[in-house]
């Protein structure tokens, strides 16, 4: 929600990035303030997921130009783990399986690492068990997921819930949800989005990367940005998503090329 007196969390200016020598991001500008929800939409290959991974610091992507400030700090001065500890969270489009590593162990380590960074109390396994079970209720997750390997044999929907569970545990300042809606049936979508809404506060911000308007029925964005060929070519309010739903993406660039990078 757009609020009076909100702070700038993220300031992206002219961001360019390449992967395997091919330029994917070609000058992105975006400002995100606390309390806001931004949706980034666009067709496959428009650079949405790349943008998410570049912000989180995936080593396969090289930043070749522009700047990103996160709470006033140069984001590119921080390693991926430092960004995470500073409060940048990425919910993965394809969460990684880690066979044999108990989910509870992984979640607790992540939680304690971030807690330590914030100078807050770390939890021992028993305390954590109570804490995480509480958070799991939010996502209607069965506690048996704690004992299974991280994402090991989880269905698509279970993996996405596990991602949002991590968001609930880590309480990031900036959460980037990369196609969290893909692969979710209607019930799972409702549960996951309800969870995300409960985690949205005046102090944090959310960037939703999605193809479809569907998710935005549940999480109402303050801004909708359309990406094409590595740039944001149009920005509007929540009604823009509805337009895209009915008219598709093709009209956007043709109609208002001058808006590029707004």
């Amino acid at each position, binding site marked *: 929600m757009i609020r009076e007196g909100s702070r700038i969390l993220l300031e992206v200016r002219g961001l360019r990035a390449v992967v395997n020598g091919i330029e994917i991001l070609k000058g992105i500008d975006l400002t995100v303030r606390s309390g806001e929800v931004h949706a980034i939409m666009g067709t496959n290959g428009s650079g949405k997921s790349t943008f998410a991974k570049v912000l*989180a*610091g*995936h*080593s*396969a992507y090289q930043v070749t130009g522009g700047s990103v400030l996160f709470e006033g700090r140069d984001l590119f001065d921080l*390693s*991926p*783990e430092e*960004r*995470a*500890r500073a409060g940048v*969270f*990425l919910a*993965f489009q394809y*969460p*990684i399986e*880690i*066979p*044999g*590593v108990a989910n509870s*162990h*992984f979640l607790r*380590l*992540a939680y304690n*690492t*971030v807690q330590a*960074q914030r100078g807050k109390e770390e939890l021992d396994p028993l305390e954590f068990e109570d804490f995480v079970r509480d958070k799991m209720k939010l996502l209607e997750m069965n506690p048996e997921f704690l004992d299974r*390997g991280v994402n090991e044999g989880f269905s698509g929907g279970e993996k996405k819930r596990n991602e949002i569970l*991590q968001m609930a545990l*880590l309480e990031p300042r900036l959460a980037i949800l990369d196609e969290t809606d893909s692969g979710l049936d209607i019930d799972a979508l409702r549960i996951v989005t309800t969870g995300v809404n409960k985690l949205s506060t005046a102090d944090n911000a959310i960037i939703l990367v999605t193809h479809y308007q569907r998710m935005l029925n549940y999480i109402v964005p303050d801004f909708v940005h359309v990406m094409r060929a590595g740039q944001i070519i149009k920005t509007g309010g929540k009604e823009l998503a509805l337009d895209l739903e009915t008219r598709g993406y093709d009209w956007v660039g043709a109609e208002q090329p001058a808006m590029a990078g707004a």
Partner: protein
Amino acid sequence: MSAVLQNLVNQPYKHGFVTEIESDIAPKGLNEDIIKLISAKKGEPAWMLDFRLKAYYQWLKMDEPKWPNVKYPKIDFQAISYYAAPKPKKKLSSMDEVDPELLRTFEKLGVPMHERAALAGVAVDVIFDSVSVATTYKQKLAEVGIIFCSISEAVQMHPELVRQYLGTVVPVGDNYYAALNSAVFTDGTFCFIPKGVQCPMDLSTYFRINTEESGQFERTLIVAEEGASVSYLEGCTAPKFDTNQLHAAVVELVALDNADIKYSTVQNWYAGDENGLGGIYNFVTKRGLAKGTNSRISWTQVETGSAITWKYPSCILQGDNSVGEFYSVAVTNNYQQADTGTKMIHIGKNTRSTIVSKGISSGHSNNSYRGLVRIAPTAAGARNYSQCDSMLIGDKCGAHTFPYIQVRNQEAKVEHEASTSKIGEDQLFYFAQRGIGSEEAVSMIINGFCKDVFQQLPMEFAVEATKLLGFKLEGSVG
């Protein structure tokens, strides 16, 4: 090493030869005279010398195995000295003289303070704790009739038992290195668990390692009589700064009816430096004979050291309903080479075997699993399950799997599963995105990968193995 402790644990040697031959080193080379010298120095009976000579003459007719997937320069067996008295290690007068690298290792492995000095070879007046522990240990075992001593002592004190079983599982001419070992072995361990006795504690070479230079040619024989059971732990996770180039050991296990032997190893011999210079050639023959009905032999190994590992702890499942197990983690880094696995020979009816092998390769290393499952015509109802997983870290290492399956009984059931995975950028990025650094991430991924094997290890071994792996692969991803 404390003189008191040394005396206590080396009791067999009070018969004379430690002091007499303290500075003895046999001239380099191997011939009949050298073998006679070894046997004479140890005051062995004639049958023991015959055993050695028989092995020697078979060895002369044999060739080094060429089939392992390892490369090394030809070994000059005439350039090795085959006998050196077990003289005390060089004593250092304080911890300040100890190699700081070694201390750092102890720190990381969590070796207790009072043991660090002993392991590093610092002369400590008396380690009271260890002494009393060693004493109670021996007494407790003697009470239930268990014999646990060096093989040299056993040859002297229990010749009939040694003679009955030695060479029955690994015959003198079994393979090149086993033949060499049979000819020249200088010491090792003997365990005998009498009928119906459940060994009250895990038997460990721990005390022996602290007090003796382990020889290049160790010989171990463990016998569990009817209904007996024992868990034997080999090795210590502290790194051994052993300069020996060739280590050719033989281990024989015999389980009679309803007996159960569990043999766990954590091997961390010197692996050579990061350029592949130096390190131990670990050419070991380990085999268990599940001789009796319902007997069980279980091997668990965590192999992280040695420049070259050539080792196939095996089970001969002779008794009906006998069970063989092999759980292995082999880790190679830098220029290490491992060719390791097992053989499960099913002879008895309804025999069952399980193989779980986890190979982890990093650096420029090569890691091969080589396993044989043979079902004899007599083994009606035999079953085997094999699972061989490989993990690669980086793109300059290799993982190889050589399964051999020979089934000669129609009723047998054999399953083999294999997988290869890679610790990739994406996995590490996932951890990093949750605030977890790459060292910790690799350690967690590896331990998850090895979980099925680690949970077979006795508790404190499992904890140490976990730490050892993290330490071993430190800096391999970054």
